């Protein structure tokens, strides 16, 4: 057999784009940018450590903002431990699907919410369809894709503020920043303990390295407010917020005690009514909300959003 030398053109010599996988990925990012063009501020709420009350603070800040007449959305990026739908009292009915996006759920006070807990069967964990034995390979990619779709495919409309509740750890913050390079900033939640301080420091370090604005720190579980007399007693030792504030040059926006009435209100989606009652913890939360507004330079008109 006579060997034949084929003269085959190379990939780049063919002008047609083929599958355009790169362009398809770029188009996904364009969809995120188009959707967020009407959102004034996107703020990540992070901790680095689980169980510090980050989601509860997110829900409370969203409720406060909505009560002040701001158009606010909450994106629950904690896909494996979603809680925003329940905490914010969203109905579990089907979400309306339109050609240009999925309608977010709405809280009784008008905040918009998208959370995996609105999409999953009750008490079901998030499971992905994956080839057997290879889930670990793809889970991260699929979760990043889900967060992207929460940003790009939800009919958020014009918002003054979109709060993103980030899961513990630092990975999702990096993903969020890649999807939203113009992130307005992050709010970090810690508890007073040294263990929390170290975990939150890693998150703040990542944010600082990426030049994401550090809007402030909130120290949660700063004591325990008695359900009966209202006095605040000691709970954890430590001064995590102060130390982190000094190290990262970030303001402490406030501190909150563990308040059983707040915990119950969040568990039953009744934060709006709880804030209306106006107890001392609600007042402190209000101060934190105002401090966050100040850090964001709030007060800009909605018209600026549309003209951005």
């Amino acid at each position, binding site marked *: 057999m006579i060997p034949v030398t084929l003269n085959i053109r190379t990939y780049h010599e063919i002008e047609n784009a083929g599958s355009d996988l790169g362009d398809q990925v770029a188009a996904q990012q364009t969809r995120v940018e188009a959707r967020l063009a009407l959102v004034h501020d996107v703020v990540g709420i992070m901790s680095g450590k689980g169980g510090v009350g980050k989601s509860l603070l997110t829900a409370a800040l969203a409720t406060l903002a909505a009560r002040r007449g701001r158009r606010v959305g909450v994106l629950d990026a904690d896909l494996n431990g979603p809680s925003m739908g329940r905490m914010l009292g969203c109905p579990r009915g089907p979400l309306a699907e339109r050609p240009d996006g999925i309608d977010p759920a709405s809280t009784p006070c008008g905040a918009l919410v998208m959370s995996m807990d609105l999409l999953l069967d009750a008490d079901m964990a*998030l499971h992905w*369809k994956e*080839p057997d034995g290879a889930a670990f390979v793809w889970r991260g990619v699929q979760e990043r894709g889900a967060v992207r*779709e929460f940003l790009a495919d939800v009919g958020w409309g014009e918002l003054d503020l979109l709060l993103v509740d980030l899961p513990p750890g630092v990975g999702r913050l990096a993903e969020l920043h890649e999807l939203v390079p113009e992130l307005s900033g992050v709010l970090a939640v810690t508890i007073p303990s040294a263990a929390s301080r170290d975990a939150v420091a890693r998150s703040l370090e990542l944010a600082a390295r990426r030049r994401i604005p550090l809007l402030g720190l909130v120290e949660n579980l700063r004591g325990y407010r008695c359900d009966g007399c209202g006095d605040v007693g000691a709970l954890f030792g430590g001064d995590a917020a102060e130390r982190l504030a000094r190290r990262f040059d970030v303001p402490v926006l406030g501190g909150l005690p563990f308040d059983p009435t707040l915990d119950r209100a969040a568990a039953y989606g009744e934060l709006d009514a709880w804030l209306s009652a106006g107890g001392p913890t609600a007042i402190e939360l209000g101060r934190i909300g105002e401090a966050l507004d100040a850090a964001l330079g709030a007060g800009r008109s909605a018209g600026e959003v549309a003209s951005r």
Partner: protein
Amino acid sequence: MKFLCVECDEQMHFEERRIPGDGTLAAVFRCPACGRMTAMLTNPMETQLVTSLGVKVGGRTVPGAPFEGIRTGVASGREDAFAAPKEPASPPAPVRWSVDAVERLGHVPSFVRGMVKKIYIEYARDHGIGEITPAVMDRARTDLGLEGM
């Protein structure tokens, strides 16, 4: 990824995508010159790679649907998580008033005229009547027991 028909030196065009349901994928390409077809077969891992990225081998032929990745990828999702939006109820068909009926309605005391007008309109709609005439008003008064109106 591009497929070249070596004999024709033509780039093959994407023809169709088949998903047999066993985690694999077949993408068929055709040479525009000679019509020869070739199929690219991916194993489950390779299929998962493109699925996870939310991209389509051969390019997108239709725009991506909202939550495409979540809906195709999540195994524990609620069956009723999404629904068509509830459209506002269609406006009721307009009911016309004849000149005689308008004149007669004018004799009704003004403070109840609006209510009476509404009753006649609802009666007409309930009975598929497009125009209210004095005869319709009489019938409504009889049927509804409103002889005093």
